[in-house]
């Protein structure tokens, strides 16, 4: 057991897989010699050398395209897209190439790769460097989409993603890089498609992802302490595959659903899960399923403004309290 930051967990996770499998290579912008702009890949270049850890030009399409070609022909590439907002400049690979090649070729082509990217707000970087793009990926058939909230999950889910035979979009939250957590020694390998109940409760189910997980947890404690409301908090962890069993099971017990999303409001994973629950567990619900999200606006840069738009423990708790007590 050691205490590790989420940032260092990324490097450890990559190193674990590169040490295990010589077909794993890693490349991206400023990731090798400099160890990445978020310093999440420090030491990998030194440990694995210039053939396996490479700095690329500012060519996101070439980065993802090359990862795909390498994956198709036998390697297990990990490609970094520095900020997830930049997924927009190479979205063709995300939307049209990675997820469709196997199907279109009737199973002849494979695409076992991982795209790691820095996702989310909180750094006061403004509208083009702060987005949560998990839904850009979740809506595309053929991808897998993962977003860890703890250092331990970073390692376990990254390992699972690298070993997965399908294309995985791995979303690291920029505002969690400095977060510390206990991590067991030795190899860690988790399972994609498994949500975890991180706080059992009986009055309502709260679903959250990445940075919203600690906030949902804080909201749950607040609700318990101040109003005796006992919420079950679930870290969704993996949007695709989606662990609907754990979610439906929880709603079956609590009879109320709340989702906490950092992404802008429209067409998010919250909407998808609410729709699944409203359809399949309609009669389990004792009241409306409610989405708590960042409003549907571009993100402002100013700290004071940015802090006002992301869901906070206070807003989460207050929304749930009002909904349960109305």
């Amino acid at each position, binding site marked *: 057991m050691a205490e590790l930051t989420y940032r260092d967990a990324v490097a450890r996770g990559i190193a674990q897989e590169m040490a295990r499998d010589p077909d794993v*290579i890693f490349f991206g912008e400023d990731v090798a010699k400099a160890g990445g702009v978020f310093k999440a890949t420090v030491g990998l270049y030194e440990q694995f050398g210039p*053939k*396996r850890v*490479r700095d*690329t*030009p500012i*060519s*996101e*399409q*070439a*980065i*993802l*395209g*090359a*990862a*795909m*070609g*390498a*994956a*198709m*022909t*036998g*390697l297990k*590439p990990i490609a970094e897209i520095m900020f997830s907002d930049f997924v927009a400049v190479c979205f*063709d*690979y995300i939307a*049209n*190439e990675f997820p469709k*090649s*196997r*199907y*279109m*070729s*009737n*199973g*002849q*082509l*494979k695409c*076992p790769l991982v795209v790691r990217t820095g996702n989310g707000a909180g750094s006061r970087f403004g509208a083009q460097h702060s987005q949560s793009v998990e839904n850009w990926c979740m809506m595309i*058939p*053929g991808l897998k989409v993962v977003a860890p909230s703890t250092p331990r999950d970073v390692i376990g889910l990254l390992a699972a993603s690298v070993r*997965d*035979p*399908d294309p995985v979009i791995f979303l690291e939250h920029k505002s969690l890089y400095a977060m510390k957590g206990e991590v067991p020694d030795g190899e860690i390998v988790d399972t994609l*498609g498994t949500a975890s109940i991180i706080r059992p409760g009986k009055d309502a189910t709260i679903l959250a992802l990445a940075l919203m997980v600690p906030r949902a947890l804080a909201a749950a404690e607040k609700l318990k302490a101040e109003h005796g409301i006992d919420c079950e908090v679930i870290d969704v962890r993996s949007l*695709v*595959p*989606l*662990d*609907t*069993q754990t979610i439906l099971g929880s709603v079956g017990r609590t009879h109320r659903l709340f989702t906490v999303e950092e992404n802008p409001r429209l067409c998010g994973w919250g909407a998808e899960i609410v729709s*699944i629950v409203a359809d399949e567990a309609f009669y389990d619900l004792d009241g409306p399923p409610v989405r708590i999200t960042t409003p549907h606006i571009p993100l402002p840069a100013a700290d004071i403004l940015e802090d006002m738009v992301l869901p906070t423990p206070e807003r989460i708790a207050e929304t749930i309290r009002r909904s349960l007590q109305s």
Partner: protein
Amino acid sequence: MPKTPGLAQAVVTPVVNDDIGEQLRLKLYHSQMLIREAEQRAFDLFLQNLVKGTSHLSLGQEAIAAGFAEAMRPGDLSFCTYRGHAHTLARGVSVEKVLGELMQRDNGLMRGKGGSMHLTSTEHGVMGSYAIIGAHLPIACGAALRAQYKGHSDVSVCFFGDGTTNIGAFHEALNFAAIWKLPVVFVCENNLYMEYTPIGEVTAVEHPAADRASAYGLDRIIIDGNDADIVYRTASAAYARARAGHGPSLIECMTYRHSGHSRADPAKYRPEGELERWKQHDPVVIYRERLKQFGISEAAIAKIDEDVRREVDEATEACKKAPMPPADILFTDVYADGGWAWRN
């Protein structure tokens, strides 16, 4: 980037003494004839409404597919576009499987799941046909990166058109391949048009590929894409360069498509007489002459033509008889587990 001396030159002047040889030349002819007949048949099958969706023929561009494919070794990889029937056939995929896919039958190369724009046969080294312009250039770089990393000797060959040189992915891929000296060969089939628009109207340079080679430290290479011998020699030199670790090549092949851009296109935009002029420079006709020039008998040629026509006829019949794809393949091969489950 270091240049391979001789590559540019090698192709400037067609060699007179026969460095190619009869056997290979017969293969080059067979390949071109097969493409010609199969594509012509695909066209006829549209008219009978037996080919579904869209379809992009390489009639008139056969020499490029034949020359680059014949110069390959088994294990070399082809990356094609929606205009990929020719390259797929040139790697040895059967006419039946190609026509079957165009006709969206169960005997098609991908059982109708991909369609004419996405022909793929990994066992023949055809690593996919891509229908988003430019997307496969970086993908070919990745396959070449794997070869370099693993110390494999295969070359990745990426085919695309003149219009493709104006999209961003072209630029990113060429630079990427050059800085890492990847064993990839970029083949621009300049047929003078991007769909319906003359390439000159939308491109800042006369030769959309070759005039950009220097931007990536590469040689400026322009060849007659309708002469299979020249194509073959150029391809061989470029593959050798790639295998030797000297990095990528960008080759612009001048050619012309005899049919429209796709089945929907009557090609009315062509200036008077342009098609006719190019038909005077038909790769199949040129090559038939070449065979004679090198003393190959009319009979031998006729035999090939006959074999090809029989193969295409038989394939057509087999496709017409083939069943439609079954419903159960709809939900297979989205993910590696064989299925499509995105939830539990």
